């Protein structure tokens, strides 16, 4: 790799973006804690689901560093496991949405004509939906009516996959528009004509020649949307429609904290602060990446 390869230059520019670097560091720490949730809570000797009604809304102590919640569960342990859920939902849903959006955008831009018109009008229609109300309807759907077998519809993790699915179902539009626009201009470039002349198939040209030129903009879009997804997940969980108890999530912790706001106001502070920190870090990182990956930047 020569000293001035595009990746090197982008890394150099990203390193100069202080907020983005701090955010990246913070996200790595949060991710490490989320990944090591089991050993960490074992080390602290706390259990996120250990109910103790005799010790409700207790103040911070040696045994429970951040106190206990309205059922006497350890707040720190629940925050750690809630972070695991938020991070995982955010990353998975953003990636699924980006994949859907990339395929739709590539097809619309590359084939053009009727297919383009159909796909773009669909995108407009999805954008015209009032997002949150529709998400609430989707979260309240009866899964057995959709035709899912009971064994899946009743399982413990269904709330988890349901939220990934519905966020991805509504969230692909930004990437689709972005990819379509870029594809429209890329498909007129000489290297694409050369690939066609050499007898390349449509699929090969779309994914091997056009897609690699779009990766950096897609990365930026995904990073920015992870934050938005985490916000949506916590909002739906707060409204009681996202992650279901006993699984911990930052949004659902706030629902309970609202009820004990008089006895234990601090319980309402921690989860919200963590959501804010995580989401703003993803947004700063996305902003930094956007500047760093901008091909027009020279230094």
């Amino acid at each position, binding site marked *: 790799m020569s000293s001035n390869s595009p990746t090197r230059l982008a890394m150099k520019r990203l390193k100069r973006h202080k907020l983005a670097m701090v955010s990246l560091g913070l996200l790595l720490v949060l991710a490490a804690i989320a990944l090591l949730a089991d050993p960490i809570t074992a080390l602290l000797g706390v259990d996120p689901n250990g109910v103790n009604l005799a010790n409700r809304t207790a103040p911070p102590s040696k045994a429970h560093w951040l106190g206990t919640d309205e059922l006497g569960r350890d707040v720190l342990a629940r925050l750690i496991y809630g972070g695991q859920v938020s991070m995982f939902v955010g990353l998975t849903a953003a990636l699924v949405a980006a994949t859907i959006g990339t395929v739709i955008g590539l097809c619309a831009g590359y084939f053009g004509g009727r297919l383009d018109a159909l796909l773009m009008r669909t995108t407009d*229609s999805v954008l015209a939906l009032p997002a*949150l*109300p529709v998400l609430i*309807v*989707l979260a309240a759907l009866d899964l057995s009516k*959709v035709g899912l077998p009971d064994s899946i519809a009743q399982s413990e993790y269904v709330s988890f996959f349901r939220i990934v699915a519905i966020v991805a179902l509504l969230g692909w539009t930004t990437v689709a528009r972005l990819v379509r626009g870029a594809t429209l201009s890329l498909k007129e470039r000489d290297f694409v004509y050369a690939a066609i002349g050499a007898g390349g198939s449509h699929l090969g040209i779309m994914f091997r020649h056009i897609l690699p030129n779009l990766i950096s903009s897609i990365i930026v879009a995904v990073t920015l949307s992870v934050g938005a997804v985490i916000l949506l997940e916590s*909002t739906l969980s707060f409204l009681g429609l996202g992650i279901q108890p006993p699984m911990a999530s930052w949004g659902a912790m706030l629902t309970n904290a609202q009820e004990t*706001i008089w006895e234990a106001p601090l319980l309402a502070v921690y989860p919200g602060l963590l*959501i804010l920190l995580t989401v703003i870090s993803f947004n700063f990182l996305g902003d930094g990446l956007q500047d760093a990956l901008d091909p027009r930047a020279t230094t």
Partner: protein
Amino acid sequence: MTGYVSRRLGQSLLVLAIMSFVIYSLIGLMPGDPIDMMISADPYMTAEDAAYLRTLYGLDLPVYERYWNWLMAAFGGDFGYSRLYNQPVELILLPALGNSVKLLVTALTISVCVAVPLGVIAAYRQRSILDYSVNLFAFAGISIPQFWLGLMLMMAFAVILGWLPAGGIATDGAPLGEQLRYLILPAATLTMTSIGSHARYVRSAMIEVLRQDYIRTARAKGASVSRVIWRHGLRNALIPFVTILALDFGFLFSGALIVETIYAWPGMGRLIFDAIMGNDYNLALLSLMLATALVLTGNLLADLTYAWLDPRIKLGETP
């Protein structure tokens, strides 16, 4: 222009028609149906009775036939009864819509009045402290969970300080000051999350405009800096800003749902939430369609004002 308006209007109506069918089908997939509700209320009803009632009310028909029946009744002015409120749904929707408009217009007005000057100054003084603060505030605004900000404001001003009511709305005919007291916290929550990004939109539109040749010409002809910025610059920067505001309507509406739910503000957003949670099919259906229609209208207005404000845009002509 007339051709463009009618074509965009036609498109929006088509999208609304498709979306109304999608929403109708989605509501049909929610748990239970009206007959299940009746059964749970009446222990003497047998399974045969339930099946008979389903046929009687047409609930056994395929979804497109049920949608068609609903649509025909709706065109006749019959939107059905609300299960939660025991009233025709339109009678419940209208006051809620009024309350939401009150909240949204207040929040939007304050946000725009603060954001426009901030954005202009940030664009003029790039890399100043004010510029960085606007940027930071914008990032905080899109990153903070609105329900949590609402909760924190409620905790500070209603629980700890006790200055403002924690939620609800003033009774009808209360003096204006009393009504405003209930409006402050919900409106503040909405405003605080939007000011930053609004200012950022104004800033980037302004930077774009200040680069133009006519700005340099105006300065060269002796117009003062402030006149060039506020008269020549701002007027042109407002065009993209107005468009973004109208496109942002869906986001604002989603915010209203959260804020209304937390502060028990009896508006459209809370109504939609309560209707979905309470299996009030007719109410959920109509309020969701109204919300979709509002967002579509916002998008349509964005396109039309854009065309109207900027005479250089020639619409309906393919290049």
